[in-house]
């Protein structure tokens, strides 16, 4: 099986920049109002770094969000921003792109905003493949409303609205996205700055909807909920960072890998035991393989949690490009009189 790296299909702007911008140039004068220690700070930092690295113009960028702690994000980016209503950001973002496809539109949402009230809009943006970057901050809780369980909370989560533990089976954001027809699905972690920045750059390069689930720690209402795979001691064994064209290795010094369980449609973890990945039959990550992405997205402990670009299938025009092209549509033009006269017209003298 040969694996071709899919080309990033949106170039970064290539403009003469008098001075390289710094991440700080993308901050606003608004005081950041997340709780001290909230994972959102780290994500903000990563996004500002992406903007600085790519020298993205603030005036051609819009951040759109719903409601939630995460959705306060736009206030802190020195771009255009629209903090809308709960769950509907994908629809606003779609409208913005249809009105002006030349804008670079980023959407920020939470596990409540994006998967509870807003699940349907998310699904439809993904299937339409509107050219957006969607960042879903998954903290497995409703932060802003003080800690009720969310659609990604694990069964048994005790919160004010589930005092004896939640009973609802959670959804997996990445699996929902894949099931909806998403063409770019990635995962990252708030505090893993380097891979997060990389994933965000990949997301921006993709034309169409790029969906990025970011595990984010809510220090106040759900502290340490991802410790199961993020805690120092377990990280190496419990995470796998996937890279296109590279074998799916993880564990201490890459001592383990994933392979297809022979004769089945499942992945299993094996020790390399000194063998080369090829010898051990380790699967090479092909980010264009949707089924592989589904299997990776579905991995839960004791399997490692998959991080990085799980799926990327470029080559399809984005919805906004199909509907209106690449440039901002002009004002309503043309000879309307002629249109009005297009039927049978008679004259009264």
């Amino acid at each position, binding site marked *: 099986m040969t694996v071709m790296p899919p080309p990033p299909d949106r170039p970064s702007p290539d403009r003469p920049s008098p001075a390289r911008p710094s991440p700080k140039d993308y901050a*606003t004068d*608004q005081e950041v109002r997340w709780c001290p220690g909230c994972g959102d700070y780290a994500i903000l930092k990563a996004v500002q770094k992406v903007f600085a690295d790519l020298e993205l*113009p*603030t*005036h*051609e*960028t*819009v*951040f*759109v969000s719903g*409601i939630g702690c995460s959705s306060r994000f*736009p*206030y802190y*980016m*020195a*771009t*255009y*921003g*629209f*903090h*809308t*209503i709960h769950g*509907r950001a*994908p*629809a*606003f*973002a*779609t*409208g*913005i792109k*249809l*009105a*002006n496809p*030349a*804008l670079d539109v980023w959407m920020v949402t939470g596990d409540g905003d994006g998967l509870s009230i807003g699940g*349907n*809009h998310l699904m*439809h943006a993904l299937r339409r493949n509107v050219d957006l970057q969607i960042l879903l901050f998954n903290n497995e809780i409703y932060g802003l409303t003080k800690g009720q369980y969310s659609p990604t909370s694990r069964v048994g989560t005790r919160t004010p609205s589930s005092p004896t533990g939640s009973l609802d089976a959670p959804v997996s954001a990445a699996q929902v996205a894949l099931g909806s027809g998403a063409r770019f699905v990635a995962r990252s972690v708030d505090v893993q700055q380097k891979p997060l920045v990389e994933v965000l750059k990949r997301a921006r390069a993709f034309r169409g909807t790029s969906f990025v689930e970011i595990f984010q720690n809510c220090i106040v209402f759900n502290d340490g909920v991802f410790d199961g795979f993020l805690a120092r001691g377990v990280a190496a064994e419990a995470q796998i960072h996937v890279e296109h064209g590279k074998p799916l290795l993880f564990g201490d010094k890459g001592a383990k890998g994933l392979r297809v369980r022979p004769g089945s449609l499942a992945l299993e973890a094996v020790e390399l035991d000194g063998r080369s990945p090829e010898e051990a039959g380790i699967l090479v990550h092909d980010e264009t393989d949707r089924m592989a992405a589904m299997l990776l997205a579905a991995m839960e402990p004791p399997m490692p949690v998959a991080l990085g670009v799980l799926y990327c299938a470029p080559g399809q025009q984005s919805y906004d490009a199909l*509907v*209106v092209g690449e440039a*901002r*549509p*002009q*004002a*309503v*033009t*043309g000879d*309307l*009189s002629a*249109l*009005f*006269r297009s*039927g*049978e*017209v*008679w*004259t*009264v*003298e």
Partner: protein
Amino acid sequence: MLDAIKAADVPEPDGTVVDRAVVRLAGDSGDGIQVVGGQFTLATALAGNDLATFPDFPAEIRAPVGTTFGVSAYQIQFGSDRVMTAGDAVDVLVAMNPAALKVNLPEVRRGGLVVVDADSFAEKGLAKAGYAANPLSDGSLDGYRVVAVDMSSQTARAVADTGVSHKEALRCKNLWALGLVCWLYGRDREPTRAWIRAKFAKTPAIAAANLAALDAGHAYGETVELHEDLRGVSVPPARLPAGDYRTVTGTEALAWGLMFGAQLAGLGMTFCSYPITPASQLLHTLARQKRFGVVTFQAEDEIAAACAAIGASFAGSLGVTSSSGPGIALKTEAIGLAVATELPLVVVNAQRGGPSTGLPTKTEQSDLYQAVFGRNADSPLPVLAARSPGDCFDVAVEAVRIATTFMTPVLLLTDGYLANASEPWRLPDLETYAPFPVRFETEAEGFRPFRRDPGTLARVWARPGTPGLEHRIGGIERDYDTGDISYDPANHQRMTDARAGKIEGIADHIAPQSVDQGEATGRLAVVGWGSTYGPISRAVAELRREGAAVSHIHLRHIWPLPANLAGLLEGFEQVLVPEMNNGQLVTLLRARYLVPARGLNKVTGRPFKVSELAAAFRAALEDTP
């Protein structure tokens, strides 16, 4: 044949020249009634009559053949003076089957003409329609003039030479009926012929069959020596203002008005909607206007449609969304955001019968409360209503003007009647409309996203993509000066006042309320809004002919109300407010002006009849206060 015609004992009005006539075509939803209705309308318009039409769709897509709930009808009134309604009582009913007769007979005036396809009155058809006995023979049609003609056989015979199948032949029955009606009113068949040729250009046999059926129906009227009551009737041309005319439905006029409004504002238009009866046609109409720069988006639901439209406005386009009551309900949260962020938006509500799913295919005016009051918090916004199909054009332009001039969402109310009804429309001279170009903010120096124009109190519109104007807005209360989030109590009061003041101030930027008919003072003011315009107008005219001191005031601006309305209403002893709802505008008028206005309410899913209004007005006048 002749013996099939029964003379009624109710005499036909003298003469063959009449002022106006009401024709209703009815049949199965598969019978092509709407199509021949449209053709007859066109022929009538070209003959110079004023007219008004109203299609009456069945609630089911295509119910089992021959059932009463599958009946589709098309009604037209035409005349030699202003017509304005599709008519109270039908002069001529063409019923293609027993179910159509059953459903529509109550609409026919005593003494009216009933033409039926006798072939369809066999046992099976009668049973499907729920007739125990044959109405053609059991006396239930006594009092009507009846022409029971073997329409199916006649059609089949007429098209025999064209080589179409029997099934195809029977599909031409509607054209046969149209031919007969054309003969009855002396209508030119040439436009219909042209239409048939164009429509069936690729299937010449079908075209020939339809042409043959049309001619055969006509010939039937012409050549068969019919009962004298069926002789041709002539309705002289109307004295309409000079100009070029076409027929439009309210939907078409609305679509075009929105487009023209966007053009006058210098804006692109992003129309976002989700299908719902009777609003879907606006989406269908605009979906065909891509070449003019109109972008349409069929969203996943009404909420997404409203949000996408607001997003488009944020991005510098004219966002428009449309629905009917249940869908508007879903949009109210999003509309609140447009109120809060002060973005332009046009929301069209084609009202239908409710509550809930209600009577989706029937007309009603019961969403005025929802339009004016139906949002959480103090969220005032302008509300406009169109009065007639053609008026939809001007109201749409006005809605765009207000939305963009005042940076506000605007609710535009039409209804199921207006959406589907058609009337002759004098093509406007587009040059006479004053443009109202949007001036997007460009000046970065001292830029504040909520800086207000002192005259209109509208905030600036700063479009993403403009260097130096990067800003962030949202639904949390914003500082009056900076536009940043503010939880300050005094600021909230100031912003609440600013929002209210801006909308109230629109009253100074609209035309003063005129009196549509009658003097500015008198015994009775009839105050209407929306599609009741036609019947109120006719009924007031009738009373004025009788010498009554009645005036007709018809509101386009529901909110804010025109500044001079208070004074106007004071000049009348009584104020009566006819509405196709349980009393909504009347609440507004009473609350605002403390006038003892009374409601005149009808909630049947059907327009007012001129006669019932006239009777109510007479009763009100008798009832001296």
